[in-house]
């Protein structure tokens, strides 16, 4: 059952995000235990697992917002280790259509260099336009957040996560609330981003239908890592069947 426990091999000289022996206990309950994970630069790794498997806790830990045991490091290609700089794309928040916050406001507020309620200097506007251009979203700048479609909002949040350019891009359920066309567009964009910036990309998903089209590696987890491999390897594994099919049968019974 223990796959990828042989830590130490991990990065193999290339840059990568390395999680070693991660454990989280909250209110007496074990949420994560001895979890190891490597995400290489330029790789897209999909994190799957049932509800309550600890995916969001793992994300919180990588973001530095969750006390834990074990280590989370970013290893540069030379082998030098630092704390990972994470670009985080949260699960699409719901906005009221009337909320008077524009895409530009979001970027200015996130930049924290200029109070967003004052007139925005030209140079800053231009910089935001360039950020949005990375996701082909220049036209969205003056739209209200609440008027964006699910796919558009994901692209905007992605552009935000890329500024400043992070070591690791982490997306929480990026395809929920996004239609098929939006999903394809987002996937093409992630592929483009990975090639252009050589980032490690870690995303969680419940949608297994096209994992094989984009994920270099799939990690099946529940408290700890149960199986790591190519999408085919993981989905054909007994661990995958045990976690998902057994649960289904339990549910039916």
């Amino acid at each position, binding site marked *: 059952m223990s796959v990828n426990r042989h830590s130490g091999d991990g990065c193999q000289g290339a840059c990568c995000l390395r999680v070693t022996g991660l454990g989280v206990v909250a209110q007496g309950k074990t949420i994560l235990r001895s979890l190891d994970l490597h995400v290489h630069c330029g790789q897209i790794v999909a994190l799957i697992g049932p509800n309550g498997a600890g995916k969001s806790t793992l994300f*919180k830990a990588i*973001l530095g*917002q969750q006390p834990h045991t074990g280590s989370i490091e970013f290893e540069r290609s030379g082998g030098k280790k630092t704390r990972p700089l*994470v670009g*985080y794309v*949260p699960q699409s*928040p719901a906005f009221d259509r*009337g*909320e*008077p*916050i*524009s895409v*530009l*406001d*979001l970027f*200015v*507020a*996130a*930049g*924290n260099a*200029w*109070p*967003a*309620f*004052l*007139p*925005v200097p030209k140079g800053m506007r231009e910089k935001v336009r360039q950020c949005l251009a990375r996701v082909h979203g220049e036209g969205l700048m*003056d739209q*209200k*957040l609440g008027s964006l479609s699910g796919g558009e909002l994901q692209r905007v*949040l992605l552009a*935000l996560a890329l500024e400043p350019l992070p070591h690791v891009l982490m997306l929480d359920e990026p395809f929920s609330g996004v239609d098929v066309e939006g999903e394809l567009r987002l996937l093409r964009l992630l592929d483009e981003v990975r090639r252009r910036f050589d980032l490690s990309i870690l995303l969680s998903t419940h949608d297994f239908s096209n994992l094989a089209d984009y994920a270099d590696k799939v990690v099946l987890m529940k408290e700890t890592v149960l199986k790591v491999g190519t999408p085919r390897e993981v989905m054909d594994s007994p661990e995958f069947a045990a976690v998902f099919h057994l649960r289904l049968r339990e549910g039916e019974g």
Partner: protein
Amino acid sequence: MMELWYRLVSLLPFSWAEAGGLTFMKNALLAIVVISPLFGLLSTMVVTDRMSFFSDALGHSAFTGIAIGALCGLSSPMWAAAAFALVLSALFTWVRYHTDLHSDTVIGVFSSTAVALGIFIATLGGGSFTKFNAYLVGDILSVEPGMIGLLAVLLLLVALLWLTSFDRLLLTSIHPALAGSRGVRVALQEWLFTAAIALVVTLSMTWVGLLVINSLLVLPAAAGRNLARNVRQYHLFSILGALVCGVAGLFLSYYVGSSTGACVTLCLALYFLLSILGRRARA
């Protein structure tokens, strides 16, 4: 300072504004000009952050602080109310971040407990509640220059908070986890903001009146939101709306002889109604 203001006011075409006219009206006008932008500014985040119930609870529990202050024999119970509200806002933020309760439940718990405590202390040993009635309705016409100075300092402090913290506040209200991932200390920001509301509510309740004070923290932004397309317009419509309605409410109260707080609130309600119609027209 006040001389300059009186000379400025004497340019207005009202009988009370002439030199030697009604000083209390001139003072009240200056107080309104200071207070209303303050409320307009705060209201933008109160509405965006869904804190209107919280500010209401603060208002209701402010007299608990006054009752405690009176019990301790303080000459100016307003400061006791401010201290009590600050403690309450800190407790509230702490509970909100350390339990799984929805914030409206947390507010309900705090509000009812604080109000009950206030009534308990005020009526202890058969005391009468009527001495608190003045706080419920408020009287801006009794405001004195020293207090206006204090309110001006408060306006300055809140403006400073806005300049330094608004971005982080906004990002926190948009998405706490996203804000956290960008190094924002979410709970600290929320506390700073709730503390600002606590101070403003308790220090201005004597003039505005507890029963209507929350309308000043909700209505300007509620109307502004209907008209604005971004954060800049939102602030402009909220602050300007609060200022215009504040002054109009004061004048209205003078000429019809009614409570100023109530008149300002009614003007704001009219502004809100117009903003809905304005949005319909734009859509």
